[in-house]
């Protein structure tokens, strides 16, 4: 019976969870079609980016005041998963950022190429496109959302210019880092060279490792939303 003081709210929550709803597969498309006539205001975006980069330079300046051991410890953790985070603004984003040898493929071929099982987030479903770069990075593309998967044990593969911007969190019990601000992301190739043509500005990035593979989820905010998507990949 539902007469206990604390039980009633829980029963109501269970009632809510038991409600079946389905959403049309093409809801997002229909909504976008519906707003197609809404005003689009270009131009503001670039001012925002310039502002964001300026903020990053400022953040870099501030972080140098932090004691060296703190920063060293911070970087060591990130290097463990194939990513290092550095001070400073980093290189300018490339006009059309591209990873070395980045090409379109399908999940099965991508899996053969990189040699580890690729995970797809249940919350986002089948990606619009799949690309493989440098024989070791798989990227799933969902519009502006991008997920990179790579073996995090192959050494440093990415540099993020955004020290102190990371927030520690977890994904399904695994260590994770959340970058709420825009950060400059540069790919490091197998020879350890920074590939400037890959330089991208990312915004809202969740990084986590699971089973030797590192995952980078770009473009979903806030953190809760990103973690929901991330958890749906395990």
């Amino acid at each position, binding site marked *: 019976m*539902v007469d206990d003081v604390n039980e009633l*709210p829980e*029963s109501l929550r*269970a*009632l809510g969870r*038991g409600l*079946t709803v389905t959403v049309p597969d093409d*809801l997002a498309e229909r909504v976008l079609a519906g707003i197609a006539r809404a005003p689009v205001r270009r131009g503001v975006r670039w001012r925002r980016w310039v502002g964001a980069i300026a903020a990053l330079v400022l953040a870099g300046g501030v972080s140098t005041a932090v004691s060296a051991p703190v920063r060293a410890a911070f970087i060591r953790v990130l290097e463990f998963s194939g990513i290092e985070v550095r001070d400073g603004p980093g290189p300018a984003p490339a006009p059309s950022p591209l990873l070395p040898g980045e090409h379109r493929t399908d999940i099965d071929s991508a899996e053969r190429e990189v040699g580890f099982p690729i995970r797809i987030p249940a919350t986002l479903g089948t990606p619009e496109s799949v690309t493989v770069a440098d024989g070791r990075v798989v990227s799933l593309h969902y519009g502006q959302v991008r997920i990179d998967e790579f073996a995090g044990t192959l050494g440093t593969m990415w540099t993020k210019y955004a020290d102190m911007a990371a927030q520690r969190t977890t994904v399904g019990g695994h260590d994770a880092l959340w970058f709420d601000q825009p950060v400059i992301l540069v790919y490091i190739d197998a020879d350890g060279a920074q590939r400037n043509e890959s330089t991208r500005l990312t915004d809202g990035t969740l990084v986590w490792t699971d089973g030797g593979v590192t995952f980078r989820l770009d473009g979903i905010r806030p953190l809760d939303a990103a973690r929901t998507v991330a958890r749906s990949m395990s």
Partner: protein
Amino acid sequence: MIARVVAGERDLFAILVTRYGVLAKRTAVLHGAGADADDVVQEAFVAAYRALPRFRSGGAFRPWLLRIVVNRSINAVRARSRARALADRAVRWDSALEWDPAAGAALGVEQRDSLVRALGRLGASDREILVVRYLLDLSEADTALMLKLPKGTVKSRTARALQKLRLVLAELNVEAGSTHG
């Protein structure tokens, strides 16, 4: 991300639709949108997009969106009841709800039915606050934002509505007892 959508990256809005589509639909059906729920949700997202420049940055998107969904649902209910004969104006609040049979493990069918019936006997505002706070599982703060109420009012109204629900459930028990006994 909302700032970027406002700044012109319209396609990013699809992520918000993907992220909140199901919750919006739940909100719509729990507010009586019934067969119109899909249209209500779609229209609500379009309306939300158009209203985005007025959305306070740093504010909570979820309760803000859901309030738009509720307003659209109420409009749909009104439009329907205007089109209907007076006789079937009193539609049961749960008439368009579908329950997942697999969820019966957490909550027995009998218990579910008595909760649904009890909610149906509550006044609209008591049911509203329980639906938002518990069935949609919004936090107290988000419930306050969504219903445009002070947080303290949400707390007291929720407690009062729970108390009423308890009384109605007890009544239903007595009725069931006298039927079977």
